[in-house]
């Protein structure tokens, strides 16, 4: 029973996005790519932030209470969630025009 249930959940997750538990966000020049990340609701997700610039980037989100400096040409991983469906904004605290959002979608949508 338990096993079937978890298998079903895995299948459902795999449907939404492959390796839903880890995504990469790249900071290059003046923007984040992708500027809108999509993750499923209710799942703890690892976001690897890769900074291609020579200068540090501070990934910050008031919505998620996250704040982390990524050194120039470096990378850092943070965890978010499990989150409820909705939109969560983030930005580079060293350059507020550089921003993006995380779109969290309920499963089954």
């Amino acid at each position: 029973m338990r096993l079937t249930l978890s298998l079903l959940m895995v299948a459902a997750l795999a449907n939404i996005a492959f390796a839903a538990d880890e995504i990469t966000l790249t900071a290059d020049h003046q923007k984040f790519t992708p500027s809108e990340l999509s993750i499923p609701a209710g799942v703890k997700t690892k976001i690897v932030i890769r900074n291609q610039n020579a200068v540090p980037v501070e990934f910050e989100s008031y919505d998620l209470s996250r704040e982390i400096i990524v050194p120039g040409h470096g990378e850092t991983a943070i965890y978010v969630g499990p989150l409820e469906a909705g939109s969560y904004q983030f930005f580079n605290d060293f350059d507020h025009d550089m921003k993006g959002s995380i779109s969290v979608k309920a499963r089954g949508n």
Partner: protein
Amino acid sequence: MLATAIIMFREVLEASLIIAIVLGASRGIENRGRWVASGALLGLMGAAIVALLANVASSEFSGNPQALLNAAVLLGAVAMLAWHNVWMSAHGRQLSTEARAIGADVESGQRPMAALMLITLAAVMREGSEAVLFLWAIATGGEQGANMLIGGLGGVIAGILVGLLLYLGLLRIPTRHFFGVTSWLILLLAAGLAAQAAGFLNQVGVLPSLGNGIWNTSGILSQNSLFGQFLHVLIGYIARPSGIQILFYVGTFASIFLLMRTCGGNRKKKAG
């Protein structure tokens, strides 16, 4: 240039407001200026080291160590603010009456001088390291480097000025209400910093979030706005707090409040 000024202003604002409150609240304590100044100096050194670590030691320091350091610095500041407030609630009232008449030189050994220094150190170190990194980023950013540095410097000066205004404002509060007002300010400040620390500890995974975004008041007052930022520093306003942040806020507030009551309870009169 203006964007640079605004970012530096925000970085400096938090430290500036905290120092203003601490300086205001410690009015009448002998030598406090020297302690606060040495805290600021040590904080700047700490900030430079952290900035260097974040850059040179790069990936080993980024991520968890960085967030843990932030949480430790914040919680250290909370403990010092608590100590300061509890001490003040026990001794502050005599201080306000005696100090001005005779120049206060009694038992300085027991006074929370180290607390003053460490609060300043924590505030300057935390915000300072980001300011240093940011300035370094624009200085090496090429083209408009010089122009942006001037903007950044303008932001620093503006941030310090706002702190100065708050300090001068605090000094205008009548002595009768003074300790009441400043101890409330410190209480709220400490609770807010504790909530920030909780955010970092959750980021690292040491603490559960206990629910993300228990409520969301971004629509009413965005934390991005200047006023939102101001309230964030002063009273710990978070537009979209997680459960653990609320828990830390309330827990810290209640603990310090009770300690103040216990230690200051046998004084003649309550504030006000």
